């Protein structure tokens, strides 16, 4: 097979340093097509140390005398150091890792070879299709229908096959509307708020262009949304760009909805950071978190300078605005930026988490990620190609999904009893989004996933996570259903750096981990005693 050409040296003697806490490991280092293995001497510890090559973000080699050192910076922000005997071996291993970790082909990636015991291919892939969410909506109202107009992905390559649209709008009108929206992403239902019948929609920007084009079907679609909600209902369009940026987009064929064309709808601009600046913010934060020697002032000024928490605040407050519009104002909300595949999804998914108690359960949250991120066409492959350590110039990378996870973590901190999942699940999603043995986050859209046969040839992350042995890491032992909306505080004093993620490998974890164990123990005890009493 073609991997063997890339592997220059099969094995070498090496010592692995995994940070200040863990003891170093010595043994034979081995490069395989997808993994880096270290097998310690037989008697010391029989455990094999294993690293998915895909998770290597950057690699640095140094040779001195007749040995060498390789520093691997991983996508999950871990930093590993390998001391290898032999200069030649060091260089060969470094080259092999470099070549193998940056392979771009999807179908030769590890998920296509990963066959864990106890899991069957095809399990859990049909766990969260849009049909399932539609069934829930249909129980609540009949204002919406499931359209298969995108069956062959011809209208919109980044949407899934089936979409939920206003009942009164036919497929032909949808096709017209798709033609008027960038990438064909016409307005579709993201969340139906059963409490007052309002709807959360998402789309991409309208292609008004410098000529201020209009599209009757698109206007009709949005009118139908308001009519379907309640006679006389109002709507708000939350544009995730600044008013100026939206206006500028007209020069390149994009733009934003003209007020006159969409009666009943009002536009609000809430600029959210995206793309390059967001990636840079992430890189600078991770840099700051890696410096253990810096003074207090330097740390605080770097924390400020990277602006990450400012992005968290903006994302959360925009989501709160959308949620508040629905819950308090009884209005329908349409969210879009430019492509509608990044900050748009950030806002709609967070708004659901705030409003919908079901999305805060273990199943509900997984469904939310599947529906609002994976199937909604967030281009994971492009956005998560590199993490914070890569020296490569970022092209399409942006940690939008990580920003989402951070916001969810902030929600969980402010409402520690209201989320059924714990920090463990968020950390796992972060890791798997960047490098995973599972197929869930592969490719950029459902269409691509179909072409690569991801569903039939790889395992779903959800079936991996939902195994009983994983539960203790992922669940929140204190969860109790909270039927209310959860409104977080977005004051800077209430937001915190997510230490569990950004400082995961630099701070000694034991005290907080044993504390968490203790909480689990108390909860289990409580269940036991209740059971036996």
């Amino acid at each position, binding site marked *: 097979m073609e991997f063997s050409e890339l592997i220059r040296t099969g094995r070498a003697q090496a010592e692995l340093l995994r940070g200040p806490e863990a003891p170093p490991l010595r043994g034979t280092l081995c490069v395989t097509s997808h993994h880096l293995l270290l097998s310690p001497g037989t008697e010391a510890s029989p455990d094999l140390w294993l690293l998915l090559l895909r998770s290597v973000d950057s690699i640095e080699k140094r040779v001195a005398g007749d040995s060498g050192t390789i520093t691997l910076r991983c996508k999950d922000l871990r930093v590993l150091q390998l001391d290898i005997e032999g200069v030649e071996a060091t260089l060969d291993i470094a080259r092999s890792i470099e070549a193998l970790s940056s392979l771009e082909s999807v179908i030769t990636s590890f998920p296509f070879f990963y066959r864990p015991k106890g899991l069957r291919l095809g399990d859990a892939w049909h766990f969260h299709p849009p049909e399932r969410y539609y069934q829930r909506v249909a129980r609540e109202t009949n204002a919406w229908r499931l359209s298969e107009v995108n069956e062959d992905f011809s209208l919109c390559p980044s949407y899934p096959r089936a979409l939920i649209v206003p009942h009164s709008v036919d497929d032909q009108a949808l096709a017209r509307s798709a033609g008027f929206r960038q990438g064909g992403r016409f307005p579709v239902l993201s969340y139906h708020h059963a409490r007052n019948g309002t709807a959360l929609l998402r789309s991409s920007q309208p292609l008004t262009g410098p000529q*201020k084009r209009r599209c009757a079907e698109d206007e009709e679609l949005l009118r139908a949304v308001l009519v379907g909600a309640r006679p006389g209902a109002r709507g708000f369009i939350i544009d995730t760009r600044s008013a100026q940026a939206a206006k500028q987009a007209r020069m390149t064929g994009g733009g934003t909805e003209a007020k006159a064309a969409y009666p009943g709808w009002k536009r609000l601009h809430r600029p959210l950071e995206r793309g390059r600046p967001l990636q840079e913010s992430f890189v600078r934060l991770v840099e700051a978190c890696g410096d253990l020697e810096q003074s207090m002032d330097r740390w605080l000024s770097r924390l400020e300078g990277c602006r990450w928490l400012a992005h968290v605040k903006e994302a*959360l407050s925009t989501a709160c605005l959308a949620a508040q519009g629905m819950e308090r104002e009884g209005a329908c909300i349409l969210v879009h930026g430019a492509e509608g595949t990044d900050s748009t999804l950030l806002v709609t998914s967070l708004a659901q988490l705030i409003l919908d108690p079901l999305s805060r359960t273990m199943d509900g949250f997984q469904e939310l990620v599947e529906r609002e991120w994976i199937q909604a066409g967030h281009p994971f492959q492009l956005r998560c190609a590199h993490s914070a350590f890569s020296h490569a110039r970022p092209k399409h990378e942006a940690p939008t999904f990580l920003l989402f996870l951070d916001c969810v973590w902030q929600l969980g901190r402010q409402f520690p009893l209201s989320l059924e999942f714990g920090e463990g699940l968020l950390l796992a999603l972060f890791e798997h989004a960047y490098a995973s043995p599972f197929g869930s986050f592969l490719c950029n859209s459902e269409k691509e996933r179909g072409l690569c046969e991801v569903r039939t040839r790889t395992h779903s992350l959800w079936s991996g996570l939902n195994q009983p042995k994983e539960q203790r890491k992922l669940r929140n032992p204190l969860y*109790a259903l909270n039927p209310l909306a959860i409104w977080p505080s977005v004051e800077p004093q209430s937001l915190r750096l997510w230490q569990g993620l950004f400082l995961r490998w630099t701070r000694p974890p034991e*005290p907080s981990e044993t504390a968490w164990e203790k909480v689990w123990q108390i909860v289990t005890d409580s269940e036991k005693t209740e059971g036996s*009493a």
Partner: protein
Amino acid sequence: MEHIRTTKVEQVKLLDRFSTNNKSLTGTLYLTATHLLFIDSHQKETWILHHHIASVEKLALTTSGCPLVIQCKNFRIVHFIVPRERDCHDIYNSLLQLSKQAKYEDLYAFSYNPKQNDSERLQGWQLIDLAEEYKRMGVPNSNWQLSDANREYKICETYPRELYVPRIASKPIIVGSSKFRSKGRFPVLSYYHQDKEAAICRCSQPLSGFSARCLEDEHLLQAISKANPVNRYMYVMDTRPKHRMQSWWDTQKDIGRIIVRISSKIWSDERITESDEKKRLNAMANRAAGKGYENEDNYSNIRFQFVGIENIHVMRSSLQKLLEVNGTKGLSVNDFYSGLESSGWLRHIKAVMDAAIFLAKAIMVENASVLVHCSDGWDRTSQVCSLGSLLLDSYYRTVKGFMVLIEKDWIAFGHKFSERCGHLDGDPKEVSPVFTQFLECVWHLTEQFPQAFEFNEAFLLQIHEHIHSCQFGNFLGNCQKEREELKLKEKTYSLWPFLLDDLKKYLNPIYNSQSQRFTVLEPSTVSFNFKFWRNMYHQFDRTLHPRQSVFNIIMNMNEQNKQLEKDIKELESKIKQCKNKQTDDILTKELLHSIHPESPTLKSSLCFKEQTLLPVNDALRTIEGSNPTDNRYSDYAEEFSKAEPAVVSLEYGVARMTC
């Protein structure tokens, strides 16, 4: 009561501190002899103790009335609007008078009456017994003894009567040394580490302008070093920043000369290898004493260490800056962090923590005794000695032990609580958040070691509340002598028994009590471990807090577990009894009756009730779900309600012109 002219004002508005659209509650304001009380239209009560008021400010008259801003020492800030200027003026004047008393006897503690008789009161005061505490540490012993030199406060007015000193230090030595030290605060024992046989001692700085040597002081230092059988090296920790000291040393050459001499004379018989400390000391001695005094081979057994903690004035203005920053309306994330940085507050907290860690390490790793001092030895010295002991001895991490620690290193050794907290109308330059910093350091430790402390955050906050409240006698006065003269034990009550009565509120449910006595805490002081203590500085801004409390629910679960376990045991014993009788039908009947009714509402009631996280009157800060209008993003809601502009927009005109 003579200060109160208006006791009740109606239609007063209470503004929300963080809202940008001037949301407010309307209610009635009452002025009592001890409290300011606001009852809003929902009958929610806000009580403010007069002694808690740090400042009252009358702002410029507005159309809706006269604004009155009250800042409290517990970081509550309230903004009232009083409809009539006259009323506002009356209240303003009354509060000015009531919040600044001239005499101790007018403080709340002297009128506070919790309905206890004299013996109960006395019992309360006897709860903490420092003699008992020294016994626990293991003194007196063959090296340390109780000195009666200060029995009548003759040597040092600000020390307690009972002091522990090295056994070989005679009374003349003590008296001589005390004359050489500022305010007579000579080196005495603060904590004795039984396991390592090393000691933490404390004193004040050597007197400036004293040109001669002080043999007695040299002897006392020698005695302290000899009292440690394991390691004769000893640290002298000056908690002041080096840069301040150096400029000071330039003007105070004598001190440098003395320090160098002390060390060179006492330990001239021993040598150690060159160390950084020595080089630093050399450089300093050179600077201080000119040439000719340093002898490289000598003065090696005293190791001189500076740990830059700033003085009370720097700390006061740092806190002031911090409060200004986080009181800003519409604060952005960037302004918050740049404000946090420029206030320097966390830098100061880290400096205190670093000093305590240095102290603990000297004892644990090097087995060396340490003498700690700052200028007068009652601010930074108290911080470092108490925190150091807390790191070393797990007893101080229990509820009772923490009380003992405060009584010993802060109250008994003369931290000037009344001046630092501004209990009386006095010099504002003497006010400084030294004790608050100590509490914050302890909070940081509880964050890093969630299972090491028997108490929780609420306990720290409650103690902070009462150092300013003047409701109990413990923190009144500036030293033990003053307290005795005030007859506090006869006229006021001690705080500690009242805290113990409410113990449940202050317990850490995940405390791991099995740990050994001498498990030392080794906190990390990497910068990112220091965080803004929101629950202290925004204690009363409930919108900023988490809406649900993990502590409460775990606490409740723990208790429920205990109860259920008890029930199980009872049932099992009943089953046994019944089996003995062999009357099966009775057994089932019994069981049916006695099963602890498992309430299905229990779990839900635990979290949907408004939970109080802290034992303060109005702390309903953990409201599930809460309200979007509590939060700032709701201010955007104005945009929701803005009138729709005319449909023909300017945009169209512009568009036409461009195409």
